[in-house]
């Protein structure tokens, strides 16, 4: 019996030692008495804070399993009620969604293209290894991070106020969104690039801009294509919801047929076509990225 208690005692002692070592690692003594002090870890504290935050977030949003289950099984308003209203779908409606669908693709293509084009010069100014002017660097980064603060749907509704309802507002919103994420990904990429060639071309008397185009661009081009295609891939999905705020595309029609009980049998048709387009564009983009990357 005493052996058993001893074993438990040892186990607890060892566990406590491990925990202590995780949170406050002690010094390590190696041969000839040299001491090495490991740095204070932050990982374990981050995990604890994460657990606390998740707990409170779940509490604040009333996230409770029983409520979820009750809602799922509610035949009047739950998911099953949707099946009753959405099926059978009215497939004959499909010719009417071709135009808004094409508009959605156009918005997303044009917006992605323009955003990616503008992102290149922006990334040039926002790369700390290229731009040595502290003021220019800080201000360009500040502007880029400001652009990233708002979600795309808010930009879209703001732009409908300026440019009126329709695809122009949506396209500009997608341009801005693409610009803000591609420029960030790009300057982070540029900061990892070997600048030897850039220095060499500058030493021939070429300006920074021309040296960048000549020596840095060829190195980042595959990543740049890949980032731009990837944002096109994401944007097609965003473009499909921008219509909710009147910024053009298929979202407007989707919103309409969802709200209007008599048109509910069209919902599945629209969703099906969006699915097809998203899958097609994703495969195309993945194919091209594989080729260019």
């Amino acid at each position: 019996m005493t052996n058993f208690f001893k074993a438990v005692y040892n186990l607890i002692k060892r566990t406590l030692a491990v925990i202590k070592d995780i949170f406050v690692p002690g010094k390590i003594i190696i041969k000839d008495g040299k001491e090495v002090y490991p740095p204070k870890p932050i990982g374990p504290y981050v995990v604890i804070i994460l657990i606390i935050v998740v707990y409170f977030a779940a509490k604040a949003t009333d996230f409770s399993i029983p409520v979820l289950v009750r809602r799922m099984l509610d035949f009047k308003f739950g998911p099953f009620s949707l099946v009753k209203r959405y099926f059978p779908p009215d497939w004959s409606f499909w010719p009417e969604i071709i135009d808004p669908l094409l508009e959605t693709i156009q918005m997303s293509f044009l917006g992605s293209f323009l955003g990616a084009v503008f992102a290149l010069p922006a990334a040039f100014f926002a790369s700390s290894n290229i731009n040595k002017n502290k003021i220019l660097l800080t201000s360009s980064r500040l502007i880029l991070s400001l652009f990233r603060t708002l979600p795309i749907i808010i930009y879209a509704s703001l732009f409908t106020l300026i440019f009126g309802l329709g695809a122009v507002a949506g396209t500009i919103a997608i341009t801005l969104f693409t610009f803000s994420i591609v420029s960030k990904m790009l300057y982070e990429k540029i900061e990892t690039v070997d600048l030897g060639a850039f220095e060499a071309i500058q030493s021939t008397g070429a300006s920074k801009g021309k040296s960048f185009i000549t020596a840095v661009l060829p190195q980042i081009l595959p990543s740049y294509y890949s980032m731009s295609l990837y944002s096109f891939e994401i944007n097609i999905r965003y473009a499909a919801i921008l219509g909710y705020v009147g910024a053009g595309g298929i979202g407007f029609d989707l919103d309409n047929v969802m709200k209007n009980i008599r048109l509910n049998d069209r919902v599945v048709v629209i969703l099906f076509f969006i699915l097809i387009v998203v899958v097609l564009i994703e495969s195309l983009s993945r194919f091209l990225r594989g080729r260019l990357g």
Partner: protein
Amino acid sequence: MIKFENVGKIYPNGTEALRNVSLEIEQGQFIAIVGLSGAGKSTLIRLINKMHDVTAGTLTVNDTVVDHTLTGKELRRFRRGIGMIFQSFNLIGRTTVIKNVLAARVSEKSFFTSLIGWYSKEDKIIALNALDQVGILEKTYGRVDQLSGGQMQRVALARTIAQDPTIILADEPVASLDPITANQVMSDFERINKELSITIIANMHHVDLALKYARRVIGINDGEVVFDGPASAINNDTLKKIYGRELTDDDIMDT
């Protein structure tokens, strides 16, 4: 002519890399700068094309005073006349040999034509001639990443020739090459120096190579010039002064 008058260099972080350097280098000389790692060789070379700024004394290169007033367009025009070769070759990866050599011409081109990567026929002829001069014309349309170290350094040399400089600065040009290739590249330098009468200033860690190819040797120890004279005047005592110790195997390429 390059003229250092009591030139000093203190980096922004306070490191004094060069102290009271006075030198005169006539057009067409082939000079090796030798010294321990950290002695200030790279710093000296980089002052000449203003990759770093002089912090004391006066530096004059081909009648241009290289000081803080030399900036912008003027600096870029000044740099066109000075080529630079690096230990790590500093080629543009993922692209062809000819594109790398043509890159030496972008300083003369408009922003737009460099953006679309278009080069004139004259530029192409200059580039091809430069490749021919270093003997790798047959690699013109191959990718640079597929070349050997020696070939890469030749492409870099061709790039510099295509720039049509009066001076070539070479920072440890053969330190990452094997002895045989190193000798071949040094002979290229020698030939270019003779045929085109371009001034060549090469930092060399390896004393034997320096003595073999350069006619004038400048020894630097801890930021100061401790020897300046013909290669033939170098003996064990002068080497000890430059290196502050007996030579080790590391200091000799052994060919």
